[in-house]
Protein backbone atom coordinates (compact mmCIF):
# COMPACT_ATOMS: atom_id res chain seq x y z
CA UNK A 1 0.00 0.00 0.00
CA UNK A 2 1.02 3.52 -0.62
CA UNK A 3 3.18 2.35 -3.51
CA UNK A 4 2.60 3.71 -6.98
CA UNK A 5 2.21 1.09 -9.70
CA UNK A 6 1.63 1.43 -13.43
CA UNK A 7 -1.70 -0.08 -14.45
CA UNK A 8 -4.10 -0.21 -17.35
CA UNK A 9 -7.50 1.32 -16.59
CA UNK A 10 -9.42 -1.93 -17.03
CA UNK A 11 -7.09 -3.83 -14.69
CA UNK A 12 -7.02 -1.04 -12.14
CA UNK A 13 -10.81 -1.26 -11.86
CA UNK A 14 -10.53 -4.98 -11.20
CA UNK A 15 -7.99 -4.60 -8.42
CA UNK A 16 -9.93 -1.70 -6.90
CA UNK A 17 -13.08 -3.84 -6.88
CA UNK A 18 -11.28 -6.62 -5.04
CA UNK A 19 -9.97 -4.07 -2.53
CA UNK A 20 -13.57 -2.89 -2.08
CA UNK A 21 -14.61 -6.42 -1.13
CA UNK A 22 -15.97 -7.63 -4.44
CA UNK A 23 -15.34 -11.38 -4.86
CA UNK A 24 -17.67 -12.17 -7.74
CA UNK A 25 -17.67 -10.96 -11.30
CA UNK A 26 -19.92 -12.01 -14.16
CA UNK A 27 -19.01 -10.94 -17.68
CA UNK A 28 -18.93 -11.58 -21.37
CA UNK A 29 -16.15 -10.70 -23.83
CA UNK A 30 -16.39 -7.45 -25.77
CA UNK A 31 -13.75 -4.96 -26.86
CA UNK A 32 -12.50 -2.62 -25.37
CA UNK A 33 -13.03 -3.94 -21.82
CA UNK A 34 -11.68 -7.51 -22.02
CA UNK A 35 -8.76 -6.87 -19.68
CA UNK A 36 -11.20 -6.44 -16.79
CA UNK A 37 -12.92 -9.87 -16.96
CA UNK A 38 -9.54 -11.40 -17.80
CA UNK A 39 -7.98 -9.78 -14.74
CA UNK A 40 -10.87 -11.00 -12.57
CA UNK A 41 -10.61 -14.55 -13.95
CA UNK A 42 -6.96 -14.56 -12.89
CA UNK A 43 -7.20 -12.69 -9.57
CA UNK A 44 -10.52 -13.68 -8.01
CA UNK A 45 -9.60 -17.33 -7.35
CA UNK A 46 -6.54 -16.04 -5.45
CA UNK A 47 -8.84 -14.20 -3.02
CA UNK A 48 -11.46 -16.93 -2.67
CA UNK A 49 -13.86 -15.62 -5.29
CA UNK A 50 -14.87 -16.49 -8.83
CA UNK A 51 -15.31 -14.97 -12.25
CA UNK A 52 -18.02 -16.63 -14.32
CA UNK A 53 -17.97 -16.08 -18.06
CA UNK A 54 -21.65 -15.94 -18.89
CA UNK A 55 -23.20 -17.09 -22.16
CA UNK A 56 -24.40 -13.56 -22.91
CA UNK A 57 -24.56 -10.06 -21.47
CA UNK A 58 -28.16 -10.81 -20.56
CA UNK A 59 -27.15 -13.86 -18.54
CA UNK A 60 -24.25 -11.96 -16.94
CA UNK A 61 -26.45 -9.16 -15.61
CA UNK A 62 -28.99 -11.69 -14.35
CA UNK A 63 -26.21 -13.56 -12.54
CA UNK A 64 -25.41 -10.18 -10.98
CA UNK A 65 -29.08 -9.90 -9.98
CA UNK A 66 -28.94 -13.27 -8.24
CA UNK A 67 -25.63 -12.60 -6.51
CA UNK A 68 -26.57 -9.08 -5.42
CA UNK A 69 -29.88 -10.45 -4.14
CA UNK A 70 -27.91 -12.97 -2.11
CA UNK A 71 -26.18 -10.06 -0.38
CA UNK A 72 -22.64 -9.84 -1.76
CA UNK A 73 -20.68 -7.13 -3.57
CA UNK A 74 -20.74 -7.96 -7.25
CA UNK A 75 -19.59 -6.41 -10.52
CA UNK A 76 -20.07 -6.81 -14.24
CA UNK A 77 -18.55 -4.90 -17.12
CA UNK A 78 -19.11 -4.46 -20.80
CA UNK A 79 -18.98 -1.95 -23.61
CA UNK A 80 -21.82 -0.16 -25.39
CA UNK A 81 -23.56 -2.92 -27.41
CA UNK A 82 -23.22 -5.27 -24.44
CA UNK A 83 -24.58 -2.63 -22.06
CA UNK A 84 -27.64 -2.32 -24.30
CA UNK A 85 -28.23 -6.05 -23.78
CA UNK A 86 -27.87 -5.63 -20.02
CA UNK A 87 -30.59 -2.98 -19.84
CA UNK A 88 -33.34 -5.52 -19.15
CA UNK A 89 -31.46 -6.74 -16.10
CA UNK A 90 -30.51 -3.25 -14.96
CA UNK A 91 -34.17 -2.25 -14.92
CA UNK A 92 -34.99 -5.33 -12.80
CA UNK A 93 -32.05 -4.63 -10.48
CA UNK A 94 -33.20 -1.02 -10.02
CA UNK A 95 -36.80 -2.18 -9.51
CA UNK A 96 -35.81 -4.82 -6.96
CA UNK A 97 -33.38 -2.32 -5.35
CA UNK A 98 -30.24 -4.41 -5.52
CA UNK A 99 -26.74 -2.98 -5.13
CA UNK A 100 -24.19 -3.71 -7.85
CA UNK A 101 -21.53 -2.02 -9.93
CA UNK A 102 -21.67 -2.02 -13.73
CA UNK A 103 -18.73 -0.80 -15.81
CA UNK A 104 -19.29 0.56 -19.32
CA UNK A 105 -16.15 1.23 -21.36
CA UNK A 106 -18.01 3.13 -24.02
CA UNK A 107 -17.22 2.61 -27.71
CA UNK A 108 -18.62 4.27 -30.82
CA UNK A 109 -22.20 3.46 -31.89
CA UNK A 110 -24.97 3.08 -32.86
CA UNK A 111 -25.34 -0.62 -33.63
CA UNK A 112 -22.11 -2.54 -33.70
CA UNK A 113 -20.44 0.83 -34.23
CA UNK A 114 -16.70 0.68 -33.65
CA UNK A 115 -14.23 -0.14 -30.92
CA UNK A 116 -12.66 3.28 -30.41
CA UNK A 117 -13.48 5.62 -27.49
CA UNK A 118 -16.81 7.44 -27.46
CA UNK A 119 -19.31 9.03 -25.06
CA UNK A 120 -22.48 8.25 -26.97
CA UNK A 121 -24.01 6.24 -24.11
CA UNK A 122 -24.54 9.31 -21.90
CA UNK A 123 -28.29 9.37 -22.40
CA UNK A 124 -28.62 5.63 -21.90
CA UNK A 125 -26.58 5.79 -18.67
CA UNK A 126 -28.15 8.89 -17.13
CA UNK A 127 -31.78 8.28 -18.13
CA UNK A 128 -32.04 4.80 -16.68
CA UNK A 129 -31.51 2.99 -19.97
CA UNK A 130 -34.12 0.27 -19.63
CA UNK A 131 -37.88 0.39 -19.14
CA UNK A 132 -39.65 2.18 -16.34
CA UNK A 133 -38.96 5.17 -14.09
CA UNK A 134 -35.59 4.54 -12.53
CA UNK A 135 -32.13 5.99 -12.15
CA UNK A 136 -28.65 4.57 -12.01
CA UNK A 137 -25.86 6.51 -10.30
CA UNK A 138 -23.23 7.22 -12.94
CA UNK A 139 -19.59 7.94 -12.08
CA UNK A 140 -17.25 9.20 -14.81
CA UNK A 141 -13.57 9.21 -13.84
CA UNK A 142 -11.06 11.20 -15.87
CA UNK A 143 -7.92 9.22 -15.04
CA UNK A 144 -6.78 5.86 -13.80
CA UNK A 145 -6.22 7.02 -10.21
CA UNK A 146 -9.69 8.51 -10.11
CA UNK A 147 -11.02 5.30 -11.62
CA UNK A 148 -9.55 3.36 -8.70
CA UNK A 149 -11.01 5.87 -6.25
CA UNK A 150 -14.51 5.80 -7.72
CA UNK A 151 -14.71 2.01 -7.57
CA UNK A 152 -14.74 2.04 -3.76
CA UNK A 153 -17.19 4.93 -3.85
CA UNK A 154 -19.37 3.04 -6.35
CA UNK A 155 -19.70 -0.03 -4.13
CA UNK A 156 -20.43 2.11 -1.07
CA UNK A 157 -23.06 4.15 -2.92
CA UNK A 158 -24.64 0.97 -4.30
CA UNK A 159 -24.92 -0.53 -0.81
CA UNK A 160 -26.02 2.71 0.83
CA UNK A 161 -28.89 3.28 -1.59
CA UNK A 162 -29.54 -0.32 -2.72
CA UNK A 163 -29.15 0.85 -6.29
CA UNK A 164 -27.06 -0.05 -9.33
CA UNK A 165 -24.07 2.22 -9.89
CA UNK A 166 -22.48 2.58 -13.31
CA UNK A 167 -18.87 3.54 -13.93
CA UNK A 168 -18.84 5.20 -17.31
CA UNK A 169 -15.43 5.12 -18.92
CA UNK A 170 -14.49 4.93 -22.54
CA UNK A 171 -12.11 2.91 -24.66
CA UNK A 172 -9.34 5.39 -23.84
CA UNK A 173 -9.84 5.15 -20.05
CA UNK A 174 -9.88 1.35 -20.24
CA UNK A 175 -6.74 0.96 -22.32
CA UNK A 176 -4.62 3.82 -20.98
CA UNK A 177 -1.85 3.12 -18.43
CA UNK A 178 -1.12 5.51 -15.56
CA UNK A 179 0.50 5.22 -12.16
CA UNK A 180 -2.03 4.41 -9.45
CA UNK A 181 -1.99 4.04 -5.72
CA UNK A 182 -4.40 1.81 -3.82
CA UNK A 183 -5.25 3.62 -0.65
CA UNK A 184 -6.53 1.94 2.45
CA UNK A 185 -9.91 3.58 2.52
CA UNK A 186 -11.67 4.23 5.77
CA UNK A 187 -14.52 1.75 5.88
CA UNK A 188 -17.83 3.53 5.55
CA UNK A 189 -20.56 2.37 7.92
CA UNK A 190 -23.19 0.86 5.68
CA UNK A 191 -26.62 -0.53 6.41
CA UNK A 192 -26.80 -4.28 7.06
CA UNK A 193 -28.20 -6.33 4.17
CA UNK A 194 -30.98 -7.84 6.23
CA UNK A 195 -33.16 -7.97 3.10
CA UNK A 196 -30.88 -10.40 1.24
CA UNK A 197 -31.91 -13.94 0.32
CA UNK A 198 -29.35 -15.90 2.30
CA UNK A 199 -31.67 -18.65 3.51
CA UNK A 200 -34.07 -18.23 6.44
CA UNK A 201 -31.55 -19.80 8.84
CA UNK A 202 -29.75 -16.45 8.68
CA UNK A 203 -32.93 -14.49 9.48
CA UNK A 204 -35.33 -16.81 11.35
CA UNK A 205 -38.97 -15.86 11.35
CA UNK A 206 -38.70 -13.76 8.21
CA UNK A 207 -38.80 -14.81 4.57
CA UNK A 208 -36.88 -12.52 2.21
CA UNK A 209 -38.12 -12.01 -1.34
CA UNK A 210 -36.28 -10.16 -4.11
CA UNK A 211 -38.84 -8.89 -6.56
CA UNK A 212 -39.93 -6.03 -8.81
CA UNK A 213 -43.47 -7.25 -9.54
CA UNK A 214 -46.40 -5.29 -8.11
CA UNK A 215 -49.63 -6.26 -9.83
CA UNK A 216 -51.76 -3.78 -7.87
CA UNK A 217 -51.40 -0.34 -9.52
CA UNK A 218 -51.61 1.49 -6.19
CA UNK A 219 -48.85 -0.72 -4.74
CA UNK A 220 -46.67 -0.17 -7.80
CA UNK A 221 -47.19 3.58 -7.59
CA UNK A 222 -46.25 3.44 -3.92
CA UNK A 223 -43.07 1.56 -4.90
CA UNK A 224 -42.32 4.19 -7.57
CA UNK A 225 -42.89 6.99 -5.07
CA UNK A 226 -40.44 5.29 -2.74
CA UNK A 227 -37.86 5.05 -5.54
CA UNK A 228 -38.36 8.71 -6.48
CA UNK A 229 -37.82 9.78 -2.86
CA UNK A 230 -34.60 7.77 -2.86
CA UNK A 231 -33.46 9.39 -6.11
CA UNK A 232 -34.21 12.84 -4.67
CA UNK A 233 -32.03 11.97 -1.66
CA UNK A 234 -29.22 10.89 -4.00
CA UNK A 235 -29.56 14.14 -5.96
CA UNK A 236 -29.33 16.10 -2.73
CA UNK A 237 -26.33 14.26 -1.28
CA UNK A 238 -24.19 12.57 -3.87
CA UNK A 239 -23.29 15.12 -6.54
CA UNK A 240 -19.57 15.06 -7.35
CA UNK A 241 -17.73 17.40 -9.69
CA UNK A 242 -14.52 19.32 -10.19
CA UNK A 243 -14.24 23.02 -11.02
CA UNK A 244 -11.19 24.53 -12.72
CA UNK A 245 -10.82 28.31 -13.16
CA UNK A 246 -14.58 28.79 -13.17
CA UNK A 247 -14.44 31.94 -11.09
CA UNK A 248 -14.14 34.92 -13.41
CA UNK A 249 -14.40 32.75 -16.52
CA UNK A 250 -16.16 34.19 -19.56
CA UNK A 251 -16.62 30.79 -21.11
CA UNK A 252 -17.44 27.80 -18.93
CA UNK A 253 -16.88 24.41 -20.50
CA UNK A 254 -18.55 21.18 -19.45
CA UNK A 255 -16.69 17.96 -20.17
CA UNK A 256 -16.25 14.57 -18.47
CA UNK A 257 -13.86 11.65 -18.67
CA UNK A 258 -11.27 11.64 -21.45
CA UNK A 259 -12.78 14.74 -23.02
CA UNK A 260 -12.21 16.75 -19.84
CA UNK A 261 -8.48 16.08 -20.14
CA UNK A 262 -8.43 17.32 -23.71
CA UNK A 263 -10.33 20.41 -22.61
CA UNK A 264 -7.71 20.98 -19.88
CA UNK A 265 -4.99 21.02 -22.57
CA UNK A 266 -7.01 23.47 -24.67
CA UNK A 267 -7.52 25.64 -21.55
CA UNK A 268 -3.75 25.91 -21.05
CA UNK A 269 -3.39 27.23 -24.59
CA UNK A 270 -6.40 29.52 -24.09
CA UNK A 271 -4.79 31.01 -21.01
CA UNK A 272 -1.68 31.85 -23.06
CA UNK A 273 -3.95 33.54 -25.59
CA UNK A 274 -5.55 35.58 -22.80
CA UNK A 275 -8.92 33.81 -22.87
CA UNK A 276 -10.74 33.29 -19.58
CA UNK A 277 -12.06 29.75 -19.84
CA UNK A 278 -13.19 27.60 -16.94
CA UNK A 279 -14.20 23.94 -16.67
CA UNK A 280 -16.92 22.17 -14.77
CA UNK A 281 -16.16 18.47 -14.87
CA UNK A 282 -19.07 16.35 -13.68
CA UNK A 283 -17.82 13.23 -11.87
CA UNK A 284 -21.38 12.08 -11.22
CA UNK A 285 -23.25 12.31 -14.52
CA UNK A 286 -26.37 11.35 -12.61
CA UNK A 287 -26.98 13.06 -10.29
CA UNK A 288 -25.86 15.89 -12.58
CA UNK A 289 -24.08 18.81 -10.88
CA UNK A 290 -26.67 21.50 -11.55
CA UNK A 291 -25.56 23.92 -8.84
CA UNK A 292 -22.09 24.88 -10.22
CA UNK A 293 -23.69 25.70 -13.57
CA UNK A 294 -26.31 27.89 -11.86
CA UNK A 295 -23.51 29.73 -10.07
CA UNK A 296 -21.41 30.13 -13.20
CA UNK A 297 -24.42 31.40 -15.15
CA UNK A 298 -24.26 34.52 -12.95
CA UNK A 299 -20.98 35.65 -14.46
CA UNK A 300 -20.06 33.59 -17.54
CA UNK A 301 -20.93 34.89 -20.98
CA UNK A 302 -21.45 31.48 -22.52
CA UNK A 303 -21.24 27.72 -21.93
CA UNK A 304 -19.81 24.98 -24.08
CA UNK A 305 -20.25 21.23 -23.79
CA UNK A 306 -17.44 19.19 -25.34
CA UNK A 307 -18.22 15.52 -25.85
CA UNK A 308 -17.31 12.45 -27.84
CA UNK A 309 -20.92 12.27 -28.97
CA UNK A 310 -23.31 14.15 -31.24
CA UNK A 311 -24.46 16.21 -28.23
CA UNK A 312 -25.97 14.47 -25.24
CA UNK A 313 -24.69 15.99 -21.99
CA UNK A 314 -25.27 19.40 -23.59
CA UNK A 315 -28.97 18.89 -22.83
CA UNK A 316 -28.26 18.63 -19.10
CA UNK A 317 -26.04 21.73 -19.35
CA UNK A 318 -28.92 23.60 -21.03
CA UNK A 319 -31.33 22.44 -18.31
CA UNK A 320 -28.90 23.60 -15.61
CA UNK A 321 -28.18 26.97 -17.29
CA UNK A 322 -31.92 27.28 -17.82
CA UNK A 323 -31.82 29.83 -20.63
CA UNK A 324 -29.75 32.36 -18.69
CA UNK A 325 -26.81 32.18 -21.13
CA UNK A 326 -26.16 30.60 -24.49
CA UNK A 327 -24.98 26.99 -24.50
CA UNK A 328 -22.77 25.75 -27.32
CA UNK A 329 -21.65 22.32 -28.34
CA UNK A 330 -18.59 20.74 -29.86
CA UNK A 331 -18.25 17.01 -30.37
CA UNK A 332 -16.73 14.22 -32.40
CA UNK A 333 -18.26 10.78 -32.85
CA UNK A 334 -17.44 7.29 -34.07
CA UNK A 335 -14.24 6.97 -32.07
CA UNK A 336 -12.78 10.24 -33.31
CA UNK A 337 -11.28 12.10 -30.37
CA UNK A 338 -11.43 15.92 -30.26
CA UNK A 339 -8.01 17.59 -30.51
CA UNK A 340 -7.02 20.39 -28.11
CA UNK A 341 -6.50 22.61 -31.18
CA UNK A 342 -10.06 22.08 -32.40
CA UNK A 343 -11.43 22.69 -28.92
CA UNK A 344 -9.35 25.89 -28.64
CA UNK A 345 -10.68 27.05 -32.02
CA UNK A 346 -14.20 26.53 -30.67
CA UNK A 347 -13.38 28.64 -27.58
CA UNK A 348 -12.20 31.42 -29.87
CA UNK A 349 -15.23 31.14 -32.12
CA UNK A 350 -17.61 31.47 -29.16
CA UNK A 351 -15.75 34.28 -27.42
CA UNK A 352 -15.19 35.94 -30.81
CA UNK A 353 -14.26 39.56 -30.73
CA UNK A 354 -14.82 39.70 -27.00
CA UNK A 355 -11.50 38.00 -26.26
Amino acid at each position, binding site marked *: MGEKILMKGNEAIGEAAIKAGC*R*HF*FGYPITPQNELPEYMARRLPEVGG*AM*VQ*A*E*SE*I*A*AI*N*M*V*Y*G*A*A*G*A*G*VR*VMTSSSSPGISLKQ*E*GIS*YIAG*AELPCVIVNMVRGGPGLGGIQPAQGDYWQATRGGGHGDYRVLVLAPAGIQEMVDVVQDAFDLADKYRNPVMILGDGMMGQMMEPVMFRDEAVTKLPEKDWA*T*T*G*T*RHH*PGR*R*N*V*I*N*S*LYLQPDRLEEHNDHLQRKYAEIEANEVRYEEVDVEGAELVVAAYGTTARIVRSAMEAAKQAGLRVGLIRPITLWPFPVEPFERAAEHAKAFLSVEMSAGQMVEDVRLAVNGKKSVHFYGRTGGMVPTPEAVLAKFKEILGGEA
Partner: protein
Amino acid sequence: MAKVFERPKALADVVTHYCPGCTHGIIHRLVAEAIDDLGILDRTIGVAPVGCAVLAYNYFECDMQEAAHGRAPAVCTGIKRVRPEAIVFSYQGDGDLASIGAGEIVHAAARGENITVIFVNNGIYGMTGGQMAPTTLVGHKTTTSPYGRDPKLQGYPVRIAEMLATLDGPAYIERVAVYTPQLVMKAKQAIKRAFANQVEGKGFSLIEVLSTCPTNWGMAPVDALKRVANEMVPYYPLGVYKDIDAKGEDK
Protein backbone atom coordinates in the same frame (compact mmCIF):
# COMPACT_ATOMS: atom_id res chain seq x y z
CA MET B 1 -54.99 -39.44 16.78
CA ALA B 2 -52.03 -39.74 14.43
CA LYS B 3 -51.79 -37.19 11.66
CA VAL B 4 -51.32 -38.93 8.33
CA PHE B 5 -51.56 -35.99 5.95
CA GLU B 6 -50.74 -32.33 6.33
CA ARG B 7 -49.52 -29.31 4.42
CA PRO B 8 -45.76 -29.48 3.87
CA LYS B 9 -43.87 -26.92 5.96
CA ALA B 10 -42.24 -25.57 2.80
CA LEU B 11 -45.63 -24.72 1.29
CA ALA B 12 -47.17 -21.43 2.43
CA ASP B 13 -50.66 -21.55 3.90
CA VAL B 14 -52.20 -19.28 1.26
CA VAL B 15 -54.70 -19.56 -1.57
CA THR B 16 -52.90 -19.81 -4.92
CA HIS B 17 -53.94 -18.04 -8.12
CA TYR B 18 -53.77 -21.22 -10.21
CA CYS B 19 -56.78 -22.19 -12.32
CA PRO B 20 -58.97 -25.10 -11.24
CA GLY B 21 -57.63 -28.39 -12.57
CA CYS B 22 -54.14 -27.09 -13.32
CA THR B 23 -51.41 -29.39 -12.00
CA HIS B 24 -49.10 -26.58 -10.80
CA GLY B 25 -50.63 -27.16 -7.36
CA ILE B 26 -49.55 -30.82 -7.32
CA ILE B 27 -46.05 -29.92 -8.54
CA HIS B 28 -45.68 -27.15 -5.94
CA ARG B 29 -46.63 -29.67 -3.28
CA LEU B 30 -44.08 -32.20 -4.52
CA VAL B 31 -41.32 -29.58 -4.46
CA ALA B 32 -42.34 -28.59 -0.92
CA GLU B 33 -42.43 -32.23 0.24
CA ALA B 34 -38.96 -32.84 -1.20
CA ILE B 35 -37.62 -29.78 0.65
CA ASP B 36 -39.28 -30.97 3.88
CA ASP B 37 -38.03 -34.55 3.50
CA LEU B 38 -34.45 -33.37 3.07
CA GLY B 39 -34.71 -30.85 5.93
CA ILE B 40 -33.27 -28.03 3.82
CA LEU B 41 -36.00 -25.39 4.03
CA ASP B 42 -33.94 -22.86 6.01
CA ARG B 43 -31.12 -22.89 3.48
CA THR B 44 -33.18 -23.09 0.31
CA ILE B 45 -33.43 -20.12 -2.06
CA GLY B 46 -35.99 -20.44 -4.84
CA VAL B 47 -36.19 -18.54 -8.10
CA ALA B 48 -39.59 -17.88 -9.66
CA PRO B 49 -40.09 -17.42 -13.42
CA VAL B 50 -42.27 -15.17 -15.54
CA GLY B 51 -45.36 -17.09 -16.55
CA CYS B 52 -48.07 -18.87 -14.58
CA ALA B 53 -45.69 -19.54 -11.69
CA VAL B 54 -44.65 -15.88 -11.49
CA LEU B 55 -46.15 -15.63 -8.02
CA ALA B 56 -44.43 -18.80 -6.76
CA TYR B 57 -42.43 -16.55 -4.43
CA ASN B 58 -45.64 -16.25 -2.39
CA TYR B 59 -46.14 -20.02 -2.17
CA PHE B 60 -42.86 -21.40 -0.83
CA GLU B 61 -41.76 -20.78 2.74
CA CYS B 62 -38.12 -20.16 1.81
CA ASP B 63 -36.24 -17.09 0.58
CA MET B 64 -37.17 -16.38 -3.03
CA GLN B 65 -36.07 -14.25 -5.95
CA GLU B 66 -38.29 -13.30 -8.87
CA ALA B 67 -36.32 -13.50 -12.14
CA ALA B 68 -36.81 -11.77 -15.47
CA HIS B 69 -38.47 -13.89 -18.18
CA GLY B 70 -36.28 -16.90 -18.94
CA ARG B 71 -33.35 -15.75 -16.80
CA ALA B 72 -33.94 -17.95 -13.75
CA PRO B 73 -30.97 -20.28 -14.47
CA ALA B 74 -28.66 -17.23 -14.65
CA VAL B 75 -30.13 -15.85 -11.41
CA CYS B 76 -29.68 -19.29 -9.79
CA THR B 77 -26.07 -19.32 -11.01
CA GLY B 78 -25.43 -15.95 -9.39
CA ILE B 79 -26.95 -17.08 -6.08
CA LYS B 80 -25.26 -20.50 -6.01
CA ARG B 81 -21.82 -19.14 -6.90
CA VAL B 82 -21.88 -16.69 -4.00
CA ARG B 83 -23.80 -18.92 -1.54
CA PRO B 84 -22.57 -22.45 -2.30
CA GLU B 85 -24.03 -23.72 0.98
CA ALA B 86 -27.55 -22.70 -0.12
CA ILE B 87 -29.88 -25.05 -1.97
CA VAL B 88 -30.96 -23.15 -5.06
CA PHE B 89 -33.81 -24.11 -7.34
CA SER B 90 -35.72 -22.57 -10.23
CA TYR B 91 -39.32 -23.33 -11.08
CA GLN B 92 -40.01 -22.50 -14.72
CA GLY B 93 -42.61 -23.03 -17.40
CA ASP B 94 -42.03 -23.96 -21.02
CA GLY B 95 -42.31 -20.47 -22.50
CA ASP B 96 -39.86 -19.23 -19.89
CA LEU B 97 -37.34 -22.06 -20.08
CA ALA B 98 -37.64 -23.45 -23.61
CA SER B 99 -38.19 -20.22 -25.56
CA ILE B 100 -36.94 -16.90 -24.20
CA GLY B 101 -34.69 -18.62 -21.66
CA ALA B 102 -33.31 -21.34 -23.95
CA GLY B 103 -29.82 -19.85 -23.83
CA GLU B 104 -29.75 -19.59 -20.06
CA ILE B 105 -30.90 -23.17 -19.42
CA VAL B 106 -28.51 -24.69 -21.97
CA HIS B 107 -25.49 -22.93 -20.51
CA ALA B 108 -26.40 -23.45 -16.85
CA ALA B 109 -26.67 -27.16 -17.74
CA ALA B 110 -23.44 -27.10 -19.75
CA ARG B 111 -21.58 -25.50 -16.84
CA GLY B 112 -23.01 -28.19 -14.60
CA GLU B 113 -24.20 -25.59 -12.11
CA ASN B 114 -25.06 -27.37 -8.88
CA ILE B 115 -28.70 -26.29 -8.95
CA THR B 116 -32.13 -27.92 -9.26
CA VAL B 117 -34.52 -26.98 -12.06
CA ILE B 118 -38.22 -27.84 -12.03
CA PHE B 119 -39.44 -27.45 -15.59
CA VAL B 120 -43.21 -27.47 -15.99
CA ASN B 121 -44.22 -28.24 -19.58
CA ASN B 122 -47.88 -27.78 -20.52
CA GLY B 123 -47.27 -26.87 -24.16
CA ILE B 124 -48.77 -23.39 -23.99
CA TYR B 125 -48.33 -19.85 -22.63
CA GLY B 126 -50.92 -19.93 -19.87
CA MET B 127 -50.44 -16.60 -18.09
CA THR B 128 -50.64 -14.49 -21.24
CA GLY B 129 -53.78 -16.22 -22.47
CA GLY B 130 -52.95 -19.35 -24.42
CA GLN B 131 -50.38 -18.52 -27.09
CA MET B 132 -48.24 -21.10 -28.88
CA ALA B 133 -45.21 -22.30 -26.93
CA PRO B 134 -42.04 -23.90 -28.30
CA THR B 135 -43.45 -27.10 -26.80
CA THR B 136 -46.94 -26.85 -28.38
CA LEU B 137 -47.62 -30.11 -30.22
CA VAL B 138 -48.10 -30.17 -33.99
CA GLY B 139 -51.75 -29.62 -34.83
CA HIS B 140 -52.64 -28.05 -31.48
CA LYS B 141 -54.67 -24.87 -31.70
CA THR B 142 -53.58 -21.86 -29.65
CA THR B 143 -54.39 -18.16 -29.98
CA THR B 144 -51.27 -17.65 -32.12
CA SER B 145 -51.62 -20.92 -34.02
CA PRO B 146 -55.38 -20.67 -34.54
CA TYR B 147 -55.35 -23.19 -37.40
CA GLY B 148 -53.25 -25.66 -35.43
CA ARG B 149 -49.46 -25.70 -35.21
CA ASP B 150 -48.20 -26.26 -38.74
CA PRO B 151 -44.55 -27.37 -38.94
CA LYS B 152 -44.19 -25.56 -42.26
CA LEU B 153 -45.04 -22.28 -40.58
CA GLN B 154 -44.17 -22.77 -36.92
CA GLY B 155 -41.64 -25.58 -36.84
CA TYR B 156 -41.57 -28.43 -34.38
CA PRO B 157 -41.93 -28.70 -30.62
CA VAL B 158 -38.71 -28.74 -28.59
CA ARG B 159 -37.79 -31.73 -26.44
CA ILE B 160 -35.82 -30.13 -23.63
CA ALA B 161 -34.97 -33.22 -21.58
CA GLU B 162 -33.52 -35.03 -24.60
CA MET B 163 -31.69 -31.93 -25.80
CA LEU B 164 -30.02 -31.17 -22.45
CA ALA B 165 -29.14 -34.83 -21.97
CA THR B 166 -26.69 -34.55 -24.87
CA LEU B 167 -24.54 -32.27 -22.71
CA ASP B 168 -21.79 -33.49 -20.41
CA GLY B 169 -22.66 -30.93 -17.69
CA PRO B 170 -25.93 -32.25 -16.23
CA ALA B 171 -25.94 -34.90 -13.50
CA TYR B 172 -29.57 -35.94 -13.71
CA ILE B 173 -32.43 -35.29 -16.12
CA GLU B 174 -35.81 -37.00 -15.96
CA ARG B 175 -39.21 -36.37 -17.51
CA VAL B 176 -42.22 -37.20 -15.33
CA ALA B 177 -45.96 -36.62 -15.39
CA VAL B 178 -48.64 -36.20 -12.73
CA TYR B 179 -51.85 -37.42 -14.35
CA THR B 180 -52.24 -40.54 -12.16
CA PRO B 181 -51.51 -41.08 -8.44
CA GLN B 182 -48.77 -43.59 -9.35
CA LEU B 183 -47.09 -41.04 -11.60
CA VAL B 184 -47.37 -38.39 -8.88
CA MET B 185 -45.48 -40.70 -6.51
CA LYS B 186 -42.83 -41.27 -9.18
CA ALA B 187 -42.55 -37.56 -9.86
CA LYS B 188 -42.06 -37.01 -6.14
CA GLN B 189 -39.10 -39.42 -6.10
CA ALA B 190 -37.54 -37.69 -9.11
CA ILE B 191 -37.95 -34.20 -7.66
CA LYS B 192 -36.59 -35.32 -4.31
CA ARG B 193 -33.56 -36.82 -6.01
CA ALA B 194 -32.99 -33.64 -7.99
CA PHE B 195 -32.72 -31.77 -4.67
CA ALA B 196 -30.72 -34.52 -2.96
CA ASN B 197 -28.19 -34.38 -5.81
CA GLN B 198 -27.56 -30.74 -5.05
CA VAL B 199 -27.18 -31.42 -1.33
CA GLU B 200 -24.59 -34.05 -2.26
CA GLY B 201 -22.86 -31.67 -4.68
CA LYS B 202 -23.53 -33.84 -7.73
CA GLY B 203 -24.40 -30.96 -10.03
CA PHE B 204 -27.14 -29.85 -12.39
CA SER B 205 -30.45 -31.69 -12.08
CA LEU B 206 -33.58 -30.97 -14.10
CA ILE B 207 -37.00 -32.56 -13.81
CA GLU B 208 -39.39 -31.90 -16.67
CA VAL B 209 -42.97 -32.31 -15.48
CA LEU B 210 -45.70 -32.66 -18.10
CA SER B 211 -48.58 -30.51 -16.94
CA THR B 212 -52.04 -29.39 -18.00
CA CYS B 213 -53.72 -26.12 -18.90
CA PRO B 214 -57.46 -26.84 -18.82
CA THR B 215 -58.27 -23.13 -19.17
CA ASN B 216 -56.30 -22.42 -22.32
CA TRP B 217 -56.64 -25.89 -23.77
CA GLY B 218 -60.40 -25.37 -23.44
CA MET B 219 -60.85 -28.72 -21.70
CA ALA B 220 -62.35 -30.10 -18.52
CA PRO B 221 -59.58 -30.99 -16.03
CA VAL B 222 -60.08 -34.76 -16.42
CA ASP B 223 -59.97 -34.48 -20.22
CA ALA B 224 -56.83 -32.37 -19.89
CA LEU B 225 -55.16 -35.15 -17.89
CA LYS B 226 -56.17 -37.61 -20.61
CA ARG B 227 -54.61 -35.35 -23.21
CA VAL B 228 -51.30 -35.47 -21.39
CA ALA B 229 -51.42 -39.28 -21.44
CA ASN B 230 -52.66 -39.66 -25.00
CA GLU B 231 -50.99 -36.80 -26.86
CA MET B 232 -48.08 -35.39 -24.87
CA VAL B 233 -46.47 -38.57 -23.55
CA PRO B 234 -46.09 -40.10 -27.05
CA TYR B 235 -44.11 -37.03 -28.16
CA TYR B 236 -42.47 -36.39 -24.78
CA PRO B 237 -41.74 -39.90 -23.46
CA LEU B 238 -41.38 -40.22 -19.71
CA GLY B 239 -38.13 -41.52 -18.28
CA VAL B 240 -34.59 -40.81 -17.17
CA TYR B 241 -32.50 -39.09 -19.85
CA LYS B 242 -29.32 -38.51 -17.91
CA ASP B 243 -28.12 -40.01 -14.66
CA ILE B 244 -24.48 -39.94 -13.71
CA ASP B 245 -25.15 -42.52 -10.99
CA ALA B 246 -26.92 -45.01 -13.24
CA LYS B 247 -24.09 -46.71 -15.10
CA GLY B 248 -21.21 -45.75 -12.86
CA GLU B 249 -20.70 -43.05 -15.44
CA ASP B 250 -18.35 -40.33 -14.25
CA LYS B 251 -19.32 -36.73 -14.61
